[in-house]
């Protein structure tokens, strides 16, 4: 199969700081790629470059073999890349189902069709009971699930998850991890930034580790946990995987 996403020598500077420095990697369809790195490593900037929130200062991004460098985020969304926000950004004055409908409109033009797709997606992430609730009444954990539902209702080819586990209880993390692990089988490729390491280590098919804007290691999760550069930069000590 052909490469789904290719990031070629991408850099992004803010004034004198280089947040993303000459990063290259590729994602194949059906992968569940974990993207990790310490705070301030440039993970979120990299996400924003792929999602079209920021244009890169240098380098190229290709999706489905097509250059999409510098595209606006609404155009990126339309070609099949969905993303979640690290700090949830709900439409506060709308209900939960209406929040998801707005993503569903990308696939279902009618209100009724979009509502149906939104309801299905809500049931998928376990938010069916909150469908009619106002979005501003949800707790952080539920808002994170709403972010996931909104991304998936777009029926994307590639989804970018930005710390969807932060603020969840251990039980919720378990449920969510299982859910994310099942996405590639449904034809959705995943790039996942996460601080809850045990979740991502167990689930990811491959990991990319960045530090200070540079890609420092790439490989299978178990290998990454023992890679000296990774351990030094990020983990501090060797991780023992169950």
């Amino acid at each position, binding site marked *: 199969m052909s490469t789904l996403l290719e990031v070629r020598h991408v850099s992004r500077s803010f004034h004198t700081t280089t947040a993303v420095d000459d990063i290259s990697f590729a994602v194949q369809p059906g992968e569940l790629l974990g993207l990790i790195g310490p705070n301030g490593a440039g993970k979120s900037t990299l996400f924003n470059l792929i*999602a079209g*929130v920021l244009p890169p200062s240098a380098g190229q991004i290709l999706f489905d073999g097509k250059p999409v460098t510098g595209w*606006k*985020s*609404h155009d990126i*969304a*339309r070609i099949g890349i*969905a*993303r979640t*926000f690290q700090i949830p*950004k*709900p*439409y*506060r*004055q*709308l209900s939960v189902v*209406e929040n998801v*409908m*707005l*993503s569903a*409109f*990308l696939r279902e*033009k*009618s*209100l*009724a069709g*979009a509502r149906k797709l939104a309801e299905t997606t809500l049931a998928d992430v376990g938010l069916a009971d909150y469908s009619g609730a106002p979005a501003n009444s949800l707790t952080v954990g539920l808002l994170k699930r709403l972010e996931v539902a*909104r991304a998936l209702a*777009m029926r994307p080819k590639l989804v970018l998850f930005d710390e969807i586990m932060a603020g969840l209880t251990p039980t919720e993390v378990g449920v969510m991890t299982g859910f994310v692990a099942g996405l590639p089988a449904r034809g959705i490729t995943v790039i996942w930034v996460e601080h809850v390491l045990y979740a991502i280590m167990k689930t990811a098919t491959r990991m990319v580790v960045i530090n200070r804007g540079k890609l420092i290691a790439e490989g299978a999760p178990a290998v990454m946990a023992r890679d000296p550069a990774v351990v030094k930069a990020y983990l501090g000590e060797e991780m023992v995987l169950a």
Partner: protein
Amino acid sequence: MSIAIPASISSRRIPVLPKRGQISWFEIVLLVISLGLVVSGIAPSLQDVILLSFLFAGLGLAWNIAGGYAGLISFGHSAFFGVGAYTSTILLLRYDISPWIGIWVGALIAAVFGSILALICARLRGPFFILSTLAFAEVVRIGALNWSSLTGGPEGLSIPPMASLAGMVFASKATYAALMLGYLVFVYGITKGLEASRFGYYLFAIRDNDDAASAAGVNPLLGRTAAMALSAALTGVGGSLFAQYFLYLDPTYVISPELSFQFALLPAVGGLGTAIGPVLGSFLITPLSELLRSHLGNAAAGLHLVIYSFGLIVVMLYFPAGLAGALNKLTRWKPFS
């Protein structure tokens, strides 16, 4: 108070109180009362107040499309009102084109002005956006004042007071009241249609969170521009109707911050981002300000503004979601249900 019932929801039960995208009994009753007021010709002395309440309800609704639905709080809408009023009047006086046509030309030109405003202010948010809209209207006003060959400058323009259907000038105030009610119902129908459409949802999304809307494939700039253009066009229609009723225009009155504030105030009092809000706001505020002005205007100049402002403060303090919000609270202590 609308005629546009979207097909997908008309089959359901009709709710008692106003609901987004649905027609309620409350709105039907309000429309019947309004029609009754026009047809029966009750209280001829109040006919001015009644028809102005209709007109301003329509104008409040038009403002609400930008301010309430798309989150574009504008204090410059009198520019669109003026553009509409001047366009139809100039077309009538210079080229003898009937206002029935001129109104739509005015709406189109107002829409162009609205798009320009939205594009100029594309990157501005909050107070910066609001101040820019104020400045925009000032530019239009000063332009109208100085372009005397077209607008008549400070002397303004007068429409000959000869009653004719083609000229949209009527002898009876009841006819004007019907015209204004027609305008109100028209804008209300568009608002209700918007609430039940994908485009309406796009506006809600852009208002509530730009970034999230963009991540869902919605182009925020396009949405804002379209909302402002639609709002401006409908405001322009109101401007033309006002000109046909008042039969006189000058830049200082039709393009003024006072008028812009009035457009914004009615939805704010009635309930931002609701269809019924601007209507309730206008039905309360317009008669109040007209009556206060006529009763207190001579005795104590300016006192009507004091009473008026005090009333506003009370509404804002106790009903932050406006009259529509207060109406929705009724459902909580409904004895039945």
